[in-house]
């Protein structure tokens, strides 16, 4: 890992912790952004962690760009000895894979896809060498995911699969982006899964939908009353495949205000995780049993 610093105009510093994605890079990025936040530096206006990089927005009238840069470099020195453990939460996200709404949408944009003759999930299963869609869904939903970035649009989580790199699912984005994606689509691009928080343009492959809203600007949904966006970087997600029947029931529960997401506090240790990924995940998922 080689950290690279660059100014983004006169109001931003962009810090690339590593060119490639890894949980190690994400942890370092999260550690450094937390340290900037805790230091309460004057002049800092936005602190944005991303997958393997982060960005600080600052007011150059308050702090000179070169001073801002050297402060971040000091923080990087401390990051070398950082504790790679975090208190976080694990959240179960129900997913209705191969739903009719993303299917209708993907059929409309077939000419923008790598393989117009199959669906997105069939394509993803094939290029990742799964025997079929069922095996692929099993692989997508069996292991947990790290929310390694929130953004693009309001509240959208990027999730990184917590498995050995050799087992990670990778898919290209659409050849050219769609102008439409159903709200709450579970998508995939590069090595990241995502959930589209709002309806709109998108380039990720579409696998299904969740009945659980993750962004509510009106804050009417029971579990979004404290804040309108559900996800935070560092959250851990476990997908659970559901049927149409369960999907419909969950949607009705959300509307009635009775839907309660399954959320449990957990401690995550990157060092323990890396020693035995499968064993660690099994233990991590026990709270959901």
């Amino acid at each position: 890992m080689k950290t690279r610093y660059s100014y983004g105009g006169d109001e931003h510093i962009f810090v690339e912790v590593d060119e490639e994605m890894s949980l190690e890079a994400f942890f370092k990025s999260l550690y450094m952004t937390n340290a900037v936040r805790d230091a309460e530096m004057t002049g800092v206006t936005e602190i944005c962690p991303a997958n393997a990089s982060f960005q600080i927005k600052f007011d150059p009238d308050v702090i000179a760009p070169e001073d801002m840069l050297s402060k971040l470099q000091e923080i990087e020195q401390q990051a070398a000895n950082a504790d790679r453990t975090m208190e976080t939460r694990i959240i179960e996200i129900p997913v209705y894979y191969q739903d009719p709404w993303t299917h209708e949408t993907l059929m409309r944009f077939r000419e923008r896809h790598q393989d117009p003759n199959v669906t997105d999930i069939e394509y993803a299963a094939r290029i990742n060498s799964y025997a079929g869609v069922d095996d692929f869904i099993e692989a997508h939903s069996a292991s947990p995911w790290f929310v390694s970035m929130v953004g693009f649009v309001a509240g959208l989580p990027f999730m990184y699969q917590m498995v050995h790199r050799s087992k990670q699912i990778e898919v290209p984005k659409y050849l050219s982006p769609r102008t439409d994606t159903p709200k709450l689509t579970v998508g995939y691009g590069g090595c990241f899964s995502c959930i589209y928080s709002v309806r709109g343009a998108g380039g990720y492959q579409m696998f299904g939908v969740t009945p659980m809203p993750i962004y509510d600007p009106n804050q009417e949904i029971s579990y979004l009353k404290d804040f309108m966006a559900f996800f935070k970087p560092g959250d851990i997600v476990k997908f659970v495949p559901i049927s149409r029947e369960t999907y419909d029931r969950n949607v009705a529960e959300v509307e009635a205000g009775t839907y309660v997401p399954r959320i449990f506090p957990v401690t995550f240790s990157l060092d323990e995780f890396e020693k035995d990924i499968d064993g660690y995940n099994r233990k991590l998922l026990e709270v959901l049993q």
Partner: protein
Amino acid sequence: MTIRVIQQGLATTVQDLGRPGYYHLGIPLSGAMDRFALRAANLLVGNDETAAALEAVFMGPTLEFTADAIVAVTGAEMIPKVDSEPRETWTSFSIKAGQVLSFEFLKTGARSYIAVSGGIDVPEVLGSRSTYTLGALGGFKGRALLAGDEVSVGDGSTNGAVGRSIPNNLRRGPGSPAELRMLPGLYWHRITERSGHSFFGDTWKVAPEADRIGYRFRGGQKLEFVDREQPFGAGSDPSNIVDGCYPYGSIQVPGGTEPIVLHRDAVSGGGYFMLGAVISADMDLIGQLQPHTLAKFVEVNMEEALTARRDRKELLQKMRTALD
């Protein structure tokens, strides 16, 4: 009092100076694309310069006032009319209860700011009245105005006098071609030296896809990339990176073909490399570019960017002094 929307215009939204602090959750700053013009309009009508006003793009709305007010229209050259009688831009004028404010066709610029004494009074969301349309957040019900809407205005201060005007030399519009100063950086190293030269040498044209999220440019040569094996997680196209944060003003070039400059409603991150960012002093200018306008990117260093920023602040200070 309220303003009744008779015709909505193309996309008329409530904007103030924006909503900092939530970009890490994908909620952008929003706010006036031309902040100088917003501040000017507010000061002309006696508002605090951070008050909310209406931003109208390319085409003005038609608005009926239910009470007397002082109004000013700044930014684009789009002549306001009170009951069909033209008024001057960048100049405060009065409007009486029952009168209708409408607009002539756009002459120059792209966005007009319509300030009303008392300020547009929609609820603050996360500390701002600005509209973030993509997230259905803030402003008037999270969307652009529609015919039939009734928009509240705050208690009208009467500090603003009618006939106050911003001197001509303080009104700045884009030249032709528009010059957008940018600080190279971020993933600049991804393109070849030859493409670096062509990017600055070419004259670009604003594409029709130009909105509050970003401005797309066309007409320059396709950029060539330095060969590399793509890093894990970045995606296979040479213009892809591992999804990261996008600075405001950053210039991404998907596929190396059409640069996109992100603006106030920016998507907060994604997987395209960026060449650097337009400096803060020139962001207002972008908000006044019409589609098909010619534009050039001009390379500056940090020192020049900070000098331009200071010049911009001085201009603002002169404007405040001129109205004192």
